[in-house]
């Protein structure tokens, strides 16, 4: 019986010791996600010197419940060439981290694709290349043709097959996909 008593005391005592030793823990540090892309800003600069058209999608809580906020600064003008550039930011960090640089560093493993929806009379062509001579797609040229409206989708694939014929056979994983409904006036 003595052994029983001793053992049970030992068990509860050790449980107590454990519990006492843990309360002085300091609070854990927060994790600021470094890879999240919260914001994609596409600036379309018209060749005729008019005002830039800016397309933006911003999802400040990443995978959280808030939906991305899409803003379009204005319409495109007919029969105009735009030089387009894409900037990616992680705005969960302060100051915001520019993810575009990472994409440039890993250009061989990334590529943007542009999908012009039915109805929109426009074309997009790559205007940059990685070290193998394949497009990255951070810079491009958008030709807005006749008056029309429709969607344009920007897709960033990670580890696609390069070179490829287009998004259909590119494979890889989608890092960004954003659709903008736009009009050509």
């Amino acid at each position, binding site marked *: 019986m003595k052994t029983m008593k001793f053992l049970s005391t030992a068990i509860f005592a050790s449980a107590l010791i454990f519990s006492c030793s843990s309360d002085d823990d300091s*609070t854990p540090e927060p994790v600021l996600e470094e890879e999240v892309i919260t914001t994609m800003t596409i600036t379309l600069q018209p060749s005729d010197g008019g005002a830039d058209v800016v397309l933006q999608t911003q999802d400040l809580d990443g995978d959280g419940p808030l939906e991305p906020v899409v803003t379009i600064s204005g319409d495109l003008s007919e029969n105009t060439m735009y030089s387009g550039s894409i900037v990616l930011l992680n705005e969960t960090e*302060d100051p915001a981290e520019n993810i575009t640089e990472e994409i440039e560093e890993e250009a061989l493993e990334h590529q943007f694709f542009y999908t012009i929806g039915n109805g929109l009379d426009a074309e997009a062509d790559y205007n940059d290349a990685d070290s193998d001579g394949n497009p990255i797609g951070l810079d491009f040229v958008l030709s807005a043709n006749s008056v029309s409206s429709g969607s344009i989708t920007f*897709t960033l694939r990670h580890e696609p097959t390069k070179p490829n014929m287009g998004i259909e056979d590119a494979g890889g994983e*989608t890092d960004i996909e954003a659709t903008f409904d736009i009009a050509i006036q």
Partner: protein
Amino acid sequence: MRHYALLVLLFSSITTLSQNCDNTLTGKVTDIHDGQLLIGVTLTIANTEQSVQTGLDGIFTFSNLCNDTYYIQVSHPYCLTKGFKVRVYKNTNKSFKLEHHIEELNQITIEGKAYSNKSKTVLESSINKEELERFSTGTLGNALNSLSGVSSLNTGNGVVKPIINGLHSSRIVIINNGVRMEDQRWGVEHAPNIDINSAGNLTLIKGAAALQYSGDATGGIIIVEAPKMAVKDTVFGKTSISGISNGRGISINSRITKSNLNGWYTSIQGSLKRTGDTEAPNYLLSNTGVFEQNASIKFGFNRFDYGIETYYSVFKNQLGILRASHLNGAQDQVRGISSPIPLIINDFSYNIDAPRQGVTHHLGRVLGYKELGRRGKLSFQYDYQKNNRLEYDIRRGDDRNKASTDLELITHTVQSNFESNRSNTLQIKTGIIGRYQKNYPNPGTGIRRIIPDYTKYDLGAYAMFDTNINESLIMEIGGRFDYTHMNVYKFYRKSFWESRNYDTLLPEIVVEEVGTQILTQPKLNFYNSSATLGATYSFKDNYKLFFNYSLASRAPNPSELFSEGLHHSSARVELGDLRFNSEVGHKFAITLQNNNENFSFSIQPYINTINDFIVIEPVDVQETIRGNFQVWEYRQTNAQLIGVDVDASYPINEKLKLNHQFSLVKGCDRSRDEPLINMPPANFKNEIVYKNSEYNNLLISLQSAYVFRQNEFPNNNFEVYIPQTETNEIVDFSTPPNAYHLLNFNSSIDFKTSNKTALTVGLEISNLLNTSYRNYLSRLRLYADDLGRNFLLTFKLNY
């Protein structure tokens, strides 16, 4: 001391008065391998020196025994000597089987069991050492899969999670050498961290009846035990080498054991396994290699009346997850699921790249026990576990080679158990347990913690009673209580915190706001009761009827409580709820067993009703900058599982035998009147075995395994707009694959290489016909076929 002596006297006098000491103990001693009667075996009752020998008929008889427990030593010139505890109640018949060949341990088993029963009123299924060796290149899950009522939830060939009667993960408790495994088996892609080669015996209890281990095993308990040690001066060992064709791998396993007559023993075991990419019948499954290194040591000493046992094991594995299964949002999933072949197929490689997992599990245990004469047996145990889980995703930039999940779980447990022998008809098992656990998720991953920082305390106590009402009826009753306290530090996204209304419901747990996140400190308490009640009735010589009711309560696990965000390996957002309470299961199981030499069978129907069952199910589709992800939310509901497991075995003649197995389970969410997800489909296994012990123990078997299509499943499909094609497509996560039939071949033969060594050569071919199939319970079924044909050639040397 005086009280002690008085007590002993008192009890011995009572028992003496009530003793009826004219019982006999008879039985025969046979060779475990061929059933041959052993002549001239000496059986000695410890402390009385009463000794008898088996006659020419292999039969022995002890007379003038009381209703009591005796220690009997069984010895034979060609076998090991070992002691056993035998309970005599009226005239008792016990047969002993001796291992007469050169085998690793020359085990002696009583009625085929060297390991004691864990529960008296539930039929246990077990896998012994010989059968386990067949799975030496596989996993614990593969071995358990050979039992009826067990299937597995797979993520490739490396992650095999057992499902018992339809339940898995936290609902299954695994006891490894007396230690409850605490290895983060919360998610579906986390397999038990146990080396199958370290085990000497596996026992499966379908349900929570074995309360001495835990009270929260709503699904069941798996008990893994190391090989038993003999009390004899000897050194022996075993080394096996296997070549694996599918994956072009090799597996080496070795064990050496030294034991002494004075009770000291040491056993060291190590294993190594390396495979590369595996193959489906028509293509390579890229990035499915495995690298596993394990070691264990057991030492201590055992006597009839006291002993100490020390055990330490390290399990370390790295495994690749099919490259083509790593996809982002719903748009990517549509591509992956609709493609007839995996999206990524590379050339064969041994490299294990991201996505991959790396797990290290340390387990240490010290056990001391003492027989306290007539009063019973007391044991004390301390164990320590450290589990480190690393998961690597496909990442970008500086984080490329950094783990995206890095969790360290440390567990200390102390327990004391007492088994009473005081009464001949009533056996009591009781014990108390205390556990401390700490989880540390490394913030250096740069990805928000999947499982938060927490410390957890458990205190538990149980008592179980079993009694022989008469010669044919055993009753069992038991109860257990567990208290769990969790102290958690969890960062929530502010947007989630507010969308759940936690800001008005739980403002008191907020510690501070950090940018877009909120640090909270939930303190949770769970009070869980569990119980078991059962009876076993023996009739008509070979028949037994088991009845058991068990009540199990399980506290929600950290994943169910605190998930909040994208779970990359399942490409979905998972949301837990910190307000969950414990789920409570009621399981009724009846088993009819006939253990006859000509035809043996068991039929095990059961019904398991679980209140506040925690399920995860899709509720929404969330738009993110990476595409659309389905949102799965944990919810508590009432679930019911009804099923039956059937086993049958029929010897055609002395050498040829038929084995059959059938399992069926139906799971239903009663609140929604909807089938439960991931229920194993009905399956049939039929096997013909030829075994010739006169010809080098030649064994040849052919097994047919038929798995039906699962027709009952919740439809969780959803539509997604694909902007590139401007179409709406269905993301089909739910539709189960078709039924399939596999043939498996197994053969082995023993050669005596010298007086003290024996070589066993085995050839096994799984998926003999190289059938292409997809398994409903495999997470990778959406993206690729299952494994094709595999040749496994094994050389095993016993010395």
